[in-house]
């Protein structure tokens, strides 16, 4: 029986998040909510200098502090805890040098948080300052202080060059530009961004009787954590188990920093033989954790007088701080998207990242695309202004369409909904009327503007690495259905997506299905949970697993109903054979067991192979793309520079929508992060010291900063996606900041080429420079923990009836 022709019963239909009930009741357990008997509290000693040699590190005074049970340093790990992918350049605790303010140097485990803090402060640590590097544009100067690790084996590259030059090359861009009647030459800068998950980092490690460790870690990718732990602890991998508890937000941010915390807590658990929990304060989180890179961009765009784009030349430098984390991949994704979703005769893109002593950068939703989209979408807008063309008309004239070839040489032969996104957002936002009306304003107090940005975003990892996922499914004795996935849900809704897919394929109600917490003991390794890949990769794997189980149940049903499996039909959950009597699903399960059939299955899915030539910047970087267009309407106060976003419209082509409520939630949430990125979220490293150490200075959007959002999906089916699905998590925030920037330019007549577009940049066109301050960051490193119970177990309340 063919599933393709039947209407979908659960996929794409209204559904509720599987874990919402526990969350609204306050029952969901996050890492800070875990308490186990005998649990110790861990605390890091962190660097107070941006670049220094560790001249002396004596932990013995800490061990004399009452309540302190153990202290570890890099010496306690195999190979000093060296880890990292794709570049192995970071240590679980600093070894020989520190390279940013907030870098962990030693970790103390103690009976109470206060004792752990006192222990950390008692450590004798002498840091000998080294010349530091804060300007990414000078990082490759011959006399720049060396931040990156020494080069090996005769490699003569500058040690501060962190990644390859990521290239996209089509034709001869220089020659094409020289021939263009109009060339725009512009520079842009995007600032650091903090993920600002409302749950700060934490981890709980429990030693096992056989000498291993179980780690509860709110990381995105438990298998990477498990691998790192086995490596730096010197344990066989089967003695390391990583379980993901409920995660309070991540957005790319809970990988490396959680791996480090996991290694520290796990080592302390092994040393002390007791469970060890470490939970960050907000200040510690902001100082220690990685950020979205800051990016310096230079773009030249060439066009004909009729608005036909001809050439794009782009140079980008990512200031990605003291360690690589995933930023070489970020640079690559930035390079692929740098020219925007347009056709060109010629393209020349070169993006790379460098070491500095400004904190460190890693993965963050969008992964390079929000940065480059801010540059290219403003430049395209400016071109429209110069030519007196409507910005949407100019985009429609040049944007990628079905059958086009991208600048990389990839033919777009299916699932291409960009034009429909643009046309729909134009209609929904009443673009033409507002654009004309706001162009005639004369007020010197407040003016409105409306701006647009479009984008495309490559699906999943692309040329970053092997792209596969696995899932398992089984029927339990109580007839419930149990799922596992190697890809995780840190708030995204993927547990619900998997549940709906399993229900659809198996033909059972979603409320019969339970999905386990991600656990390296039970799930199948599926690569990292990143790059908006979970719905397509994990969804296809879950679909395959459910189909395998369905095949087994169909055989049992055919046997019981004495017919061919092709003759079976389903009415609700029941099976019906030729005699037209409905047999309950439970009866089929019982019969399958009597037949000796095993009611569990697994499924694997591998993405179609892609080819990318790094040396020549040509190929097929991603299996396919998602597309979107957003319009922002703003009101700018010309006296203060304050920008209020009045409304946002977003139309995105994400293929088939599997879990509508979740997809809309992702879109609203991504747009909101994009709004913060655009206007208020600013991380300032002054001489390496972060200035924003809590939410009173790092300003993420509140409910009154975010306007009503009108969102719609274009569902252009993708043949490799489950039911035609693509993805939404990252693309949602990519075009928001440039749409707002273009609206500000429409309102004020002035371009703001730096993010965030704060009051002074909008009003004055430049920053106000407060004096440098080390204090905020140091306070963050050493924030006193508030009083906590002196006894680990809380006193039982007396309740008087």
């Amino acid at each position, binding site marked *: 029986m063919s599933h393709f022709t039947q209407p979908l019963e659960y996929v794409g239909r209204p559904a509720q998040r599987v874990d919402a009930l526990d969350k609204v009741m*306050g029952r969901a357990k996050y890492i800070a909510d875990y308490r186990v008997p005998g649990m110790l509290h861990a605390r890091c000693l962190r660097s107070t200098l941006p670049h220094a040699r560790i001249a002396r590190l004596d932990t013995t005074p800490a061990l004399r502090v009452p309540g302190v049970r153990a202290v570890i340093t890099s010496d306690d790990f195999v190979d000093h805890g060296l880890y990292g992918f794709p570049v192995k350049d970071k240590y679980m605790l600093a070894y020989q040098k520190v390279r940013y303010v907030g870098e962990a140097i030693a970790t103390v485990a103690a009976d109470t948080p206060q004792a752990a803090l006192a222990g950390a402060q008692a450590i004798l640590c002498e840091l000998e300052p080294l010349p530091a590097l804060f300007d990414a544009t000078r990082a490759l100067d011959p006399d720049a202080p060396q931040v990156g690790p020494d080069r090996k084996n005769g490699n003569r590259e500058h040690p501060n060059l962190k990644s390859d030059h990521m290239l996209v090359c089509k034709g001869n861009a220089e020659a094409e530009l020289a021939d263009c009647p109009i060339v725009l030459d512009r520079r842009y800068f995007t600032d650091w961004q903090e993920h600002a998950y*409302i749950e700060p980092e934490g981890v709980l490690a429990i030693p096992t009787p056989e000498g291993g460790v179980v780690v509860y870690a709110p990381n995105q990718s438990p298998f990477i954590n498990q691998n790192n732990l086995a490596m730096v602890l010197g344990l066989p991998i089967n003695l390391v188990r990583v379980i993901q508890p409920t995660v309070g937000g991540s957005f790319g941010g809970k990988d490396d920093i959680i791996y480090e915390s996991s290694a520290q807590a796990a080592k302390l658990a092994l040393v002390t033989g007791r469970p060890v929990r470490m939970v960050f304060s907000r200040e510690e989180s902001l100082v220690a954790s990685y950020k979205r890179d800051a990016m310096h961009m230079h773009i030249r765009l060439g066009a004909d007088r009729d608005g036909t784009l001809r050439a794009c030349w782009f140079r980008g430098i990512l200031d990605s701080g003291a360690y690589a984390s995933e930023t070489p991949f970020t640079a690559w994704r930035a390079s692929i998207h740098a020219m925007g979703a347009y056709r060109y005769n010629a393209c020349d893109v070169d993006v790379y990242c460098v070491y500095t002593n400004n904190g460190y950068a890693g993965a963050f939703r969008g992964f390079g695309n929000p940065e480059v989209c801010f540059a290219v979408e403003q430049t395209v807008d400016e071109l429209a202004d110069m030519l007196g063309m409507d910005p949407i008309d100019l985009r429609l004239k040049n944007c990628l369409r079905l059958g086009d070839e991208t600048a990389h040489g990839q033919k777009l032969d299916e699932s291409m909904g960009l034009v429909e996104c643009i046309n729909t957002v134009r209609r929904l936002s009443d673009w033409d009327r507002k654009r004309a009306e706001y162009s005639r304003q004369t007020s010197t107090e407040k003016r409105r503007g409306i701006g647009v940005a479009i984008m495309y975003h490559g699906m999943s990892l692309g040329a970053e690495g092997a792209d596969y996922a696995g899932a398992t499914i089984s029927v339990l004795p109580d007839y419930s259905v149990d799922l596992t996935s190697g890809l995780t849900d840190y708030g995204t809704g993927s547990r619900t997506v998997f549940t709906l897919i399993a229900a659809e394929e198996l033909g059972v109600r979603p409320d019969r299905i339970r999905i386990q917490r991600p656990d390296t003991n039970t799930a199948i390794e599926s690569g990292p949970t990143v790059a908006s890949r979970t719905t397509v990769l994990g969804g296809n794997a879950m679909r395959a697993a459910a189909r395998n189980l369905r095949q087994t149940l169909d055989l049992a049903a055919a046997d019981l109903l004495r017919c061919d499996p092709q003759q079976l039909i389903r009415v609700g959950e029941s099976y019906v054979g030729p005699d037209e009597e409905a047999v309950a699903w439970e009866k089929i399960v019982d019969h399958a067991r009597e037949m000796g059939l095993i009611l569990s299955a697994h499924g694997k899915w591998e993405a179609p192979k892609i080819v990318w030539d790094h040396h020549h910047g040509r190929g097929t970087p991603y299996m396919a793309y998602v597309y979107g267009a957003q319009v922002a309407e703003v009101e700018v106060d010309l006296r203060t520079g304050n920008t209020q976003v009045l409304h946002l419209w977003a139309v995105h082509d994400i293929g088939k929508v599997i879990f509508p409520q979740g997809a809309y939630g992702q879109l609203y949430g991504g747009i*909101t992060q994009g709004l913060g990125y655009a206007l208020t979220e600013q991380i300032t490293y002054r001489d390496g010291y972060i200035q924003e150490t809590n*939410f009173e200075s790092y300003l993420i959007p509140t409910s009154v900063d975010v306007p009503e959002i009108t969102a719609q999906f274009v569902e252009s089916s993708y043949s490799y996606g489950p039911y035609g699905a693509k993805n939404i998590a990252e693309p949602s925030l990519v075009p928001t900041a440039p749409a707002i920037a273009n609206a500000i330019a429409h309102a004020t007549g002035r371009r703001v080429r730096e993010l965030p577009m704060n009051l002074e940049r909008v009003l004055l066109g430049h920053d106000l420079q407060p004096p440098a301050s080390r204090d905020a960051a140091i306070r963050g490193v050493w924030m006193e923990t508030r009083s906590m*119970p002196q006894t680990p177990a*809380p006193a039982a309340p*007396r309740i008087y009836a």
Partner: protein
Amino acid sequence: MWIEMTLNGKPVAVEAPPDISLLDLLRDYLNLTGTKEGCAVGECGACAVIMDGRLVNSCMVLAPQAHGSEVITIEGVHGPDGGPNDLQQNFIEYGAVQCGICIPGMIMAGEALLMHNPNPSRQEIRMGLAGNLCRCTGYQQIVDAIEATAKGRQKG
């Protein structure tokens, strides 16, 4: 010192140091971990509880200040059968929940708002949530859920 209060409708007495916050009293001494810590400086609202009818950030209230007061936490919000009440059910139905860490505070803010303004406009709902940060949802579905609850309660 001994701190006595009415907590989720029941009298409670607990011995705790005088210099801790109400948040720590709830989480570490009364084992009520539904109330979350997001910033500990009164900026994010993850620790919001209702104290004597007012929404407060429990990280900003010294535990002794709660002595003699009536405190409602997320554990005290539920329907008659112990399941979700109408506001909680609407949070589920309108997709107001993603990672969920801010949600206990959001539910408390929603209840406090509806206590004082049973028929709020969407803008008034947004004002009522302005002290509660959410990084996942963009607030829209949270506003939807509270709006629907207000309408439902108006109908009785």
